[in-house]
């Protein structure tokens, strides 16, 4: 791998996750010299053990509150408190390393929420400056490049596609037929969940071994199509791309002429360094990219880099979370469904509630229902069962409840990826008075779920539970209504054609800074009713194609 630390490269990318990696891969293949600055460590397969304590309950993925807090203020608690909420993953590959890898596309109507719904009090949703058709070829590209498994035409609500998935769907747990039974009874349409996980050998990587520890864990066989496994090694092979871990960017530097000239960062010894570059792409997550820009002040940009509009950090959105579960007595299940099965994936999703018939003519936006088996993590399971009671269970009652959970019932659960309207009470700023262990002002995040999304979350809860009840569940649990899936974050540098109402142009280039791009979830004016990792990657490929052309033509630093 080259060492570009002493030279001006063509492109410096901050962040190696879903946004940064497709850019690094495509631009290096196109012949550009690329440095990727990644804040966290470069894990390898040997680090990916199934140890709940080490991996999930300590700080493998995100900083501690002592090292680097977020300040979080919610509607329930008006004081901004130090928190670990709002991080995705600080490591090479970012959140794609530990994701559950649910890869659905946005739907065409997701690109024009303002046109569809008009003004909604308190909400700041806007149309996208592109349409589904502009992104569709890049959805194809992601699926083919990294390996996504699924079956086209299984879902009557799926957006248009010209080809099938490159890989067939994953194997499924026999309890999937319970969902099918419930769906059939109600005239609904469960389909195999598309996953960024290999069901067959693909491009030199091995397929899934069904280890049952997927979400929250790294994949020890490289079957999960993280950017760490699927893109970055190939970027490095070009010999044009250097990935520099443990490098925390703290300022994007600009010249008097108003162009960016590089990125200042702390290396692993906390020494300040400068990586010079002709083009800078910030891909650090919607929250942290906004933080970096807001901390990059200069006389030309007193309110933060590229922030003449005042919009950097505003219009932050997440995914509205609805979660529920249901218990099935073993006697109600077919014989193959009773034992703990080799395959832990349930693999059933439903988009019948992408729009809610209860709210026709109003704000009818729902989302995607993802039916799952509860996670295998034993400590988490004990806490989850404990916290169903008020006050939480402990002692012999908790042990009895857990014995029942493991031996007498099977539980199925669902999570909904619901639209999250950007709104006036959800945004990120920086707080100069609170600094991390390196001395960098931290992100201060305020969040509130819009009442329209909260209302629809309640409806989605009942719709999804009805499927489980129709399938024979004898007991249901309403776990979360109007919650927030923090790892799905968007909007803080929204794109658009008008510099007064957007930070980036339709190719994610800052309106005010011709050689600055922001390429993660920050660009999205609305979140859609799906998890957005696939969309962030597709957009990154789209921007990469455009930027590669500009670099070739020598116009990358021109207005």
């Amino acid at each position, binding site marked *: 791998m080259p060492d570009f630390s002493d030279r001006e490269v063509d492109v410096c990318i901050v962040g190696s996750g879903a946004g940064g990696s497709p850019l690094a891969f495509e631009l290096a293949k196109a012949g550009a010299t690329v440095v990727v600055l990644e804040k966290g460590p470069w894990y390898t397969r040997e680090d990916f*053990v*199934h*140890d*709940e*304590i*080490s991996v999930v*309950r*300590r*700080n493998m993925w995100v900083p*501690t509150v*002592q090292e680097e807090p977020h300040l979080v203020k919610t509607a329930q608690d008006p004081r901004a408190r130090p928190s670990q909420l709002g991080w995705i993953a600080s490591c090479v590959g970012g959140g794609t390393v530990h994701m559950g890898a649910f890869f659905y596309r946005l739907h065409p109507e997701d690109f024009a929420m303002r046109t569809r719904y008009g003004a909604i009090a308190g909400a700041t949703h806007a149309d996208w400056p592109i349409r589904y058709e502009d992104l569709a070829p890049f959805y194809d590209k992601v699926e083919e490049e990294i390996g996504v498994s699924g079956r086209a035409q299984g879902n009557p609500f799926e957006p248009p596609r010209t080809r099938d998935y490159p890989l067939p769907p994953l194997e499924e747990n026999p309890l999937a037929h319970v969902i099918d039974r419930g769906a059939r009874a109600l005239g609904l349409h469960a389909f195999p969940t598309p996953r960024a996980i290999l069901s067959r050998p693909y491009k030199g990587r091995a397929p899934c071994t069904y*280890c049952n520890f997927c979400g929250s864990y790294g994949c*020890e066989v490289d079957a999960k199509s993280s950017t760490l496994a699927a893109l970055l090694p190939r970027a490095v092979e070009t010999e044009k791309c250097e990935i520099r871990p443990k490098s925390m960017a703290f300022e994007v530097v600009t010249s008097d002429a108003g162009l960016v000239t590089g990125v200042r960062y702390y290396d692993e010894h906390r020494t300040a360094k400068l990586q010079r570059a002709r083009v800078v792409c910030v891909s650090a997550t919607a929250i942290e990219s906004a933080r970096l820009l807001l901390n990059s002040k200069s006389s030309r940009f007193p309110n933060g880099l590229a922030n003449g509009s005042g919009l950097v950090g505003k219009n932050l959105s997440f995914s509205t979370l609805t979660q529920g579960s249901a218990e099935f007595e073993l006697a109600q299940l077919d014989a193959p469904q009773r034992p*703990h099965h080799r395959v832990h994936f349930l693999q059933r999703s439903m988009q019948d509630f992408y729009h809610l018939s209860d709210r026709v003519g109003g704000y009818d936006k729902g989302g995607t229902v993802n039916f799952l088996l509860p996670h*295998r993590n*034993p*400590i988490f*399971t*004990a*806490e989850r069962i*404990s916290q169903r009671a008020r*006050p*939480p269970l*402990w*002692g*012999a009652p*908790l*042990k*009895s409840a*857990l*014995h029942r959970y*493991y*031996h007498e019932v099977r539980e199925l659960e669902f999570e909904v990826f619901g639209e999250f309207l950007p709104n006036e009470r959800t945004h990120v700023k920086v707080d100069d008075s609170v600094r991390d262990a390196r001395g960098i002002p931290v992100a201060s995040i305020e969040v509130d779920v819009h009442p329209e999304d909260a209302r629809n979350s309640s409806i989605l809860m009942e719709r999804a539970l009805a499927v489980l009840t129709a399938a024979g569940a004898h007991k249901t649990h309403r776990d979360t209504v109007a919650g927030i899936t923090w790892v799905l974050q968007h909007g803080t540098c929204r794109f658009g054609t008008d510099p007064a109402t957007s930070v980036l142009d339709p190719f994610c280039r800052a309106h005010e800074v011709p050689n600055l791009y922001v390429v993660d979830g920050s660009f999205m004016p609305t979140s859609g009713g799906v998890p957005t990792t696939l969309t962030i990657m597709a957009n990154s490929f789209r921007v990469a194609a455009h930027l590669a052309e500009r670099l070739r033509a020598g116009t990358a630093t021109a207005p």
Partner: protein
Amino acid sequence: MDPSPSPSHADDPEPRLEFFGATEADTARALFSALIPDDDPPGSPGATTARVVVYVDRTLREPSFRRFHRFVRDGLADLERLMVRDHRVQFAHAPLAPRQVMLKKFQLGQVQGARVPAATFFNVMHGLALEGFWGAPSHGGNHDMVAWKWAGIEVTCH
């Protein structure tokens, strides 16, 4: 039933504790065995069989847990002091039922005179106990995978 140190097999003795002092260890064992009792339901393992105290002792010695040291020691001292005050018996040597009555009050924040915030102390110690019972044996608890075997789950940590 008096809580007692974990049965030591000649070939598998319980590791020496290094965070808890001798009397603290007695209180800690009594706390964990009340939170996750052995043999209730009958035949089931609990904190004692699983050696939860070994896990907690080891974890509290990790650098990121140093800030909990005062809190944990004060909370254990509170348990002892309040048990003697209210029930005229030491927590470490009390039967299970009065220990659980006291812990219930801690959980609900209904103790008078505790130095630590009682509900927070309960939640932290219960959280550590659950980790020590259900976590991988390599961390010191879930001895011989007794919890995983009882649940019938295979967890492979390669």
